[in-house]
């Protein structure tokens, strides 16, 4: 069965363009096309789409509606995936999007949209509960650390990979301890070890988690657009 997609962008040209692109995709059906936040919410209530593809900036405030939609759907419709289309390559927006967890979330730069394989991958990834971040945003973050060989991800133990997977999904230390049946202390030890191996030990605390997530996504998610769902969940 085709994936049902609600589309939102206040720019008619972009909205129609995306609709045309997706019209050629047999696995995807656009069931609603909206031009602002309110009509998007209505469409979600009415059609219960599998995936929302939304512009980051729309009326009414023209600020970060797309990220707010993602945060709100996390509680109201946890099964709906969200692809945020953005003109901003700034990692800060990715950090904001991942605030409510990376599961079922994708952040795609608008200039990628014309590449239908990228758009399709993103939609399929979030529909399956996975995530995808635009490589153009992640590359500058991890590139300097790649000068040797890999980012350090390869050095992680399987348990550390599991912990990092959960961090990437936005879980707290306590939640990670619960789901892996570890003590909080042990989780902290793993996390410290992850940070050291990824060369993040000196970074600022909040962005440390996000950076670790991005490194993780850049290699397991974005590069091959594969899905990271549940690989770490029990």
């Amino acid at each position, binding site marked *: 069965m085709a994936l049902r997609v609600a589309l939102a962008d*206040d*720019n008619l*040209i*972009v909205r*129609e*363009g*995306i609709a*045309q*692109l997706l019209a*050629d995709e047999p696995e995807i059906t656009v069931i609603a096309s909206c031009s602002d936040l309110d009509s998007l919410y209505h469409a979600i209530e009415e059609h219960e789409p599998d995936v929302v593809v939304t512009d980051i*900036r729309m009326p009414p*405030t*023209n*600020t*970060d509606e797309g990220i707010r939609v993602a945060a709100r759907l996390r509680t109201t419709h946890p099964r709906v995936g969200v692809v945020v289309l953005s*003109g*901003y*390559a*700034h*990692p*800060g*927006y990715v*950090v*904001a999007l991942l605030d409510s967890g990376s599961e079922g979330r994708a952040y795609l730069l*608008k*200039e990628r*949209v*014309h*590449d*239908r394989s990228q758009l399709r991958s993103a939609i399929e990834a979030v529909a399956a509960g996975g995530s995808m971040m635009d490589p153009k945003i992640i590359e*500058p*973050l991890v590139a*300097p650390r790649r000068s040797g060989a890999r980012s350090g991800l390869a050095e992680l133990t399987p348990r550390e990979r599991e912990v990092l997977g959960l961090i990437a999904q936005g879980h707290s230390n306590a939640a990670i301890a619960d789901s892996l049946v570890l003590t909080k202390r042990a989780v902290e030890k793993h996390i410290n070890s992850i940070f050291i191996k990824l060369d993040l030990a*000196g*970074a*600022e*605390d*909040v*962005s440390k988690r*996000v*950076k670790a997530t991005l490194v993780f996504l850049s290699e397991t998610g974005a590069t091959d657009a594969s899905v990271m769902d549940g690989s770490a969940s029990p």
Partner: protein
Amino acid sequence: MPALVGRYEAAGDGGPAARAAMAGVAAESRSGPATWQLVLLGMLGLLASVAVSVITARSDVLADPVANAVLRAVAVGSWVFAGLVTWRSKPASRLGPLFILNGVAFSATTLAASSEPGLFTAGRVVWAFYIVVQLYVVLAFPEGRLPDRASRAIVGIFAVGTAALWTPLLLGGGQLPAGGALVRCRGECPTNPVDALGLSSGAADLLSQLASTLLGLAVVAIAVVLARRLRSASPASSMTLAPSLAWLCVAALSFGAGALVRAWAGDATPGALVFSWIGTVAAVLFPYALLIGLVRGRLFSAAALRETLSELTRHRDAASVRDVLARALHDPTLGVVYWVPGVSSYVDAWGARVELDDVAAGRAVTEVSSRGRPVAAILHDPALDAAPGLMRSAGNAALLALENASFEAELRASIEELRVSRARIVAAGAAERRRLERELHDSAQNRLVGLQIRLRLAQERADHSAPEFAATLTSLGDQAEAAIEELRRIAHGISPSLLATRGLVEALRGETVHSGVPVQIEADELGLSTPEVETAVYLCCLESIQNAAKHAGRGARVTVRLRHEGDDLAFAVHDDGRGFDARTVEDGAGLTGIRDRIAAVGGRVDVASAPGRGVTVTGSVPWPPRARA
């Protein structure tokens, strides 16, 4: 010689009503009496005093005629004397005439010395009236009018009550109520010639007792009101009021106590007589208490002026002028505002524009001018106006210093004006940059994205039929992508959108993710502020971080701290890198720009460094919360 045009100088032409009202002081425009009028009144008073004493001493009705005569003569003379002195020194106040009226009313009570029943009764009626006037005077001191509802109520109730009790007694015949030591009869008082109602002696006694009780209660109420007034009086006015109010309390208490004893123990009991005489003597001497108060007020004025002059020879700067005046005049709330002709407005000592009406609420205003040009206005306790000429003299004494301070305030006002206009320009610039940034994203970028999609669709269609054309379309698509990237770079340089949407901390955090140097951010919950303030701090921190990334050396770490300090935001960017010698290195263009930006939003920024000690950039800006859109 500089002239001073103040409230007092204008007092003669009747013009100050508006200004006095503005200052919260009752308008007083009555002109004073001429000297010859006062002399004439004084002579009449003396005559009345002599006549009263002679008539009283020869009375065969009143008890203790000699003592009575002396006290009556002193009372009449004192009221008239105090009235003349007050009238002369405070011609605008009706206190002087009131005192004289008191003396006149008192003289008329001497009719009660007559054994002729009609005259005696008339004298007693005037006595009752005199008591009402006396209570009015006591409560109206020193303003010359009843200042509050309590005192108006006391006088009103007492006047109505007296009339209500005396009317049946006057019509009903028999004995009139007892009236204290000065109207006590030696034997039986002459009986009331009118006897229309034929009251029983029991009923008449009851009415008399009620009249005495009413007086006693009124006096106790007055004592309470006066004590309360004295407690809340400012230093300047209590200097003038204290002796008279204290004296009044003594007189009022003994008078009241006497009246109560008389009402319940009897007219001629020793207790009643003692209280009666104490109260009488005190009441008779009351005018002198007032005069002592006036003298003390003048001594206060003299001391205040002496202090003002001697202090101002030592301090002439703006900040001291206010302090010196406040100290010398014992008015800690005293304020000075300065006239700036350029903006046709008063400004405070910091150069901020003020509306005289706003700052003068509940205060008196004394304007100080030089050569007909306003210089400053002193806002002070209205009680200081009670001392005649004090504020005018103080303003005169401080004129030179006030002029200096006024220039200083004017300078500050222009600096403030400049700061405001610079802030306006910065704010307008920030708004314009944000608008541009939005335009680039919403309009230009989206158009290119739309173009890109169409090129892609066209290219897909051409793929099989015209591969070369398809390749051209692909390359056009790549150029569109490059244009989008270019546009994004430009837009971000114009105004970082993250700052507008998610605030300072998240914007910085976003930048530090790829800053090339480890950055630790420690921040309070800052909330959003105005775009120009946020942009200034953001750019300052970013510049500092970038400098650290460039110059601090390998392995250096940066810590950014952002916290509230009162209404300000304090920020600090510290790196533990190699540092530099702050004495030999001049500010680069980047830092100068940062300083300008921070200064334009009313903040400051400092850079401290030493070789091997890293670099610390600290600063603070006012942090007004952003208005909800």
